[in-house]
């Protein structure tokens, strides 16, 4: 098998923008290889085609996915999300996470949760949780503990301000190394944020001015490059005479 020419024909769409219907991989040319498909790709008999428009990415050796940014969220396992409680049933809280279905948060899925100390969340409570069951068809299930059962910052988020963004901006804020806008703001203001991969961001700081400043800076940074983000953040800080 001539691996070199095989690789050339198959990866010439990587890092290019693809639209639904484009064929990105021909499986008949790749024998005995395992390929991992992420979001936006599906298998159609002998080839892999695109479901959503976006940039095709490859993480060597074999992970392919389409990077796109939407206003809605598709639930995935082990994602951390910010949900809003909609209803309290006997066994579960129903939580809205901007997905096609409402998510269930079992009342016992908290650190040290027993039938006696069920938390009292009213409708509208903001929760930081982790997706533990994400079968595409059924309602996703959340949990407010990490894998070892500890609370680890999950749970209700009090005070602060929550705003909605696209999923692409949420991913950028969570990327490592630290996103430039958060770094630039962190040098002058102390604040805390929680970013949900479902496109919700919560910001809390000691004064309302700081909260508004941080939220505006984050919302404006979506389409800016690293240096542009730093410049924008510094301009905002100057306006409020923090520097």
């Amino acid at each position: 098998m001539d691996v070199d020419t095989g690789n050339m024909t198959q990866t010439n769409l990587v890092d290019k923008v693809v639209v639904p219907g484009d064929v990105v991989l021909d499986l008949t040319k790749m024998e005995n290889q395992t390929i991992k498909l992420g979001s936006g790709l599906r298998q159609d008999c002998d080839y892999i085609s695109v479901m959503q428009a976006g940039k095709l990415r490859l993480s060597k050796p074999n992970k392919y996915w389409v990077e796109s940014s939407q206003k809605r969220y598709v639930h995935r396992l082990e994602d951390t999300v910010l949900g809003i409680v909609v209803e309290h049933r006997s066994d579960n809280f129903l939580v809205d996470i901007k997905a096609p279905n409402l998510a269930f948060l079992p009342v016992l899925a908290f650190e040290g949760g027993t039938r006696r100390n069920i938390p009292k969340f009213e409708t509208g409570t903001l929760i930081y949780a982790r997706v533990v069951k994400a079968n595409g068809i059924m309602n996703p299930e959340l949990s407010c503990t990490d894998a070892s059962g500890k609370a680890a910052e999950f749970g209700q988020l009090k005070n602060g301000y929550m705003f909605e963004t696209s999923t692409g901006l949420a991913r950028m804020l969570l990327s490592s190394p630290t996103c430039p806008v958060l770094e630039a703001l962190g040098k002058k203001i102390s604040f805390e944020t929680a970013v949900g991969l479902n496109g919700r961001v919560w910001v809390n700081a000691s004064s309302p001015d700081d909260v508004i400043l941080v939220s505006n800076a984050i919302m404006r940074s979506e389409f800016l490059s690293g240096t542009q983000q730093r410049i924008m953040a510094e301009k905002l800080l100057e306006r409020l005479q923090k520097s």
Partner: protein
Amino acid sequence: MEDRTDGRNANQLRPLGCSRTILNRAHGSARWSQGNTIVLAAVYGPKAGTKKGENPEKASFEVIWKPKTGQIGKQEREYEMILKRTLQSICLVNVHPNTTTSVIVQVVGDDGSLLPCAINASCAALVDAGIPMKHLAVSISCGLMEEGSIILDLTKSEEEKLKAFAYLVFPNSPLSVIDKVHSSKEEPIEHGIITSVSYGAMPVSGYFDCLERGRAASAAISEFLRRSLQKQSSEDASRAAQ
């Protein structure tokens, strides 16, 4: 060859325009213009639950057509039904079963070829909302003149004068890594047809001529759609990735 009122030749399309993500609250939106025919499409969804009578194992679509003026009547209901069937056939309905996606179409300007413009706008809006799709749809109107020649992208006055015309919807031409040798065994995907709505009486040969011309022109629209999707998407991605 007769001259067309706006000076185009038989195969020329009106200037196309497409902008996406224009509405703040909609999950996906697009505005598509072909000359003076302008349509705004908004997509909300997928939302949980299906309507009564719809199959809960598939995602269902709901289309609402809003005319520029006047009350909603039979013509709007017909457009809604055609649009719903077209969108159902291009979207993957098994990815999010038991959900409803709403598409709302608002007519901003009507100068002929309204249904093709609406289909193009809805397809762009669905891509903007990230609804999983098999491929894109491009739509065009073709008219049959008396002497048998075909004209493309009809204006309202041409539609009224012509004896017969058709609205055609084709799949777009995909980019593919499959070798040409491999795929020449089957017909390329853009030779299929998704929807065809015809008005008036035309001979069979005339209809097939319309199909051919329409298919050839749909390659141009497909290329335009791809470029407009790439332009917006690469601007966002290149800025956000840095």
